[in-house]
């Protein structure tokens, strides 16, 4: 195995638009080198010496990389999985990402990993626990984290803190940043009939380190919206994104697409649209 150190990643003034890197697109991205501000990957897909990692190490020479953890289970009631965090840290050291993020959620208990971002009751107790885990994870990874707001389909009766406040307070206590997923806010706001603009307003603007945009669909026999990262970004989500730009200013923005993966061009088209919105915002600000 080569012990040669990777070249440092390129540095860009990075408030542009990126896309999620999925293995079926890797060869085309390497060949075409589309203009993108960054690529984002799910940490857990790159924790072994795999072909996927080989692609990532090649592409990181030309693109800044954001690493998005989906399985650290920071909201889990048990202690954090130190083996998992060790693998996460090893990946960070290899890739030297521009951003590292995780979720306001839990996904493992009693030795079982449930492959989903599961909801927490928002109580003082879970706020203490979650904040402690964010701090522990930041220490273990040696990096500040961005924490993403989840999409949700159920709420617990004993929740006492609104999610936006829970996230803002986590950022205050742990100095973590916030990854603001606009689609998740829209989905949860529709599912629970709250005002998405008020949610944006409750987040501390200075903590926002990244924005996610993705698609959703309506569940078959209910009018529940499901965040599936499997379609184009819906018009109301673009509108909410424009509101987020006005509130937070320019931040790195990601087009997420994980299921029903379309040709790369479709993702690049969505990224171009996001970039146009950012440009319009910037011009409006300069005028």
């Amino acid at each position, binding site marked *: *195995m080569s012990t040669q150190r990777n070249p440092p990643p390129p540095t860009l003034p990075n408030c542009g638009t990126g896309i999620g890197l999925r293995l079926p697109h890797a060869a085309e991205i390497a060949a075409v080198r589309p203009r993108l501000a960054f690529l984002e990957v799910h940490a857990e897909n790159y924790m*072994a010496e795999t*072909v996927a990692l080989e692609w990532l190490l090649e592409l990181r020479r030309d693109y800044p990389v954001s690493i998005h953890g989906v399985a650290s289970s920071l909201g889990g009631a048990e202690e954090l999985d130190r083996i998992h965090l060790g693998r996460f840290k090893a990946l960070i050291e290899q890739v030297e990402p521009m951003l590292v993020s995780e979720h306001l959620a839990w996904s493992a208990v009693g030795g*079982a*990993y449930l492959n989903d971002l599961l909801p927490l009751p928002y109580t003082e*107790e879970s706020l203490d626990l979650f904040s402690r885990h964010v701090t522990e994870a930041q220490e273990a990874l040696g990096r500040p984290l961005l924490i993403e707001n989840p999409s949700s389909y159920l*709420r617990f009766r004993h929740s006492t803190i609104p999610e936006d406040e829970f996230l803002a307070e986590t950022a205050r206590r742990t100095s973590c940043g916030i990854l603001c997923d606009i689609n998740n806010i829209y989905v949860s706001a529709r599912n*629970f009939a709250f005002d998405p603009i008020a949610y944006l307003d409750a987040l501390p603007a200075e903590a926002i380190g990244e924005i996610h945009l993705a698609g959703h669909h309506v569940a078959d026999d209910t009018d*529940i919206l499901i965040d599936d990262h499997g379609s184009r970004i819906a018009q109301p989500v673009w509108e909410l994104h424009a509101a987020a730009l006005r509130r937070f200013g320019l931040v790195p923005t990601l087009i997420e697409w994980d299921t029903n993966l379309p040709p790369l061009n479709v993702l690049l088209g969505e990224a171009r649209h996001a970039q146009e919105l950012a440009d319009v915002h910037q011009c409006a600000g300069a005028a």
Partner: protein
Amino acid sequence: MSTNVPALLELQLQLRQALLGGNASELVAAIRGDGLAPSARLAIYRHHAVATLSAVLKGTFPVVCRLVDERFFAYAAHEYLREHPPHSRCIVEYGADFADFLAGFEPCKGLPYLPDVARFEWALNASATVREVVPLPISALEAITSEKAGHLKLRLQPSVSYFASYWPIGAIWQANQENEVPKVDLASGGTRVEFRRAGDAVAWRGLDPGTFAFRAALADGLVLSVAAAAATEKDPAFDIAAALERVFAVGLAVAFTESRTGTVGP
């Protein structure tokens, strides 16, 4: 630690149970309706867990799925994930013991070769995802005296693995790559194959009994003299020198250890 943490743990254990098909009555009482039955809200999460984990299994074991049909596979996958939810946070590592599960799964008893098809697909998938490393040239062995040669241990490419079965699994797998599955004679003999990533694809190929025994022993970390004995037991005419040369010629060896002297090579 806060006194309410056990309450959160209890809630999470209940949700785990509900997602994996168990009783959800206590949990349902903790969920707000918000205009929809709490059980329907829970079903969204249950559906996601079952659908995504089943899809992972189907992606790794497509020939098993084809042999038993989609509906039966979905049933078997559901039973498996209830009893064996993933432990690793890396979901590509899920399914390592699916073959063992199938071996003990009563409704599959009529297809005795099915667990070995699953083992074959697991090995194929593992080889496909692992990176190859720079091979060692045979010249690296020049300094080894012939007395010491028998004590050498070779390390093979990380993507390489060996698989043997009483059943013609290679033929079954190959037949199921076609639209119209040709008949496979189950009595046509066993399988001895080598899996290896080659370029951007993964390849498997049948090996003669001597070569299989030799390489599989090396892959198990046995010293050269023991691997040679295993090969000649299967094939008394086995040419050890030629076989060793071939291992290097095809880039299988990546490092070696000389007994009691540590690893040599890159």
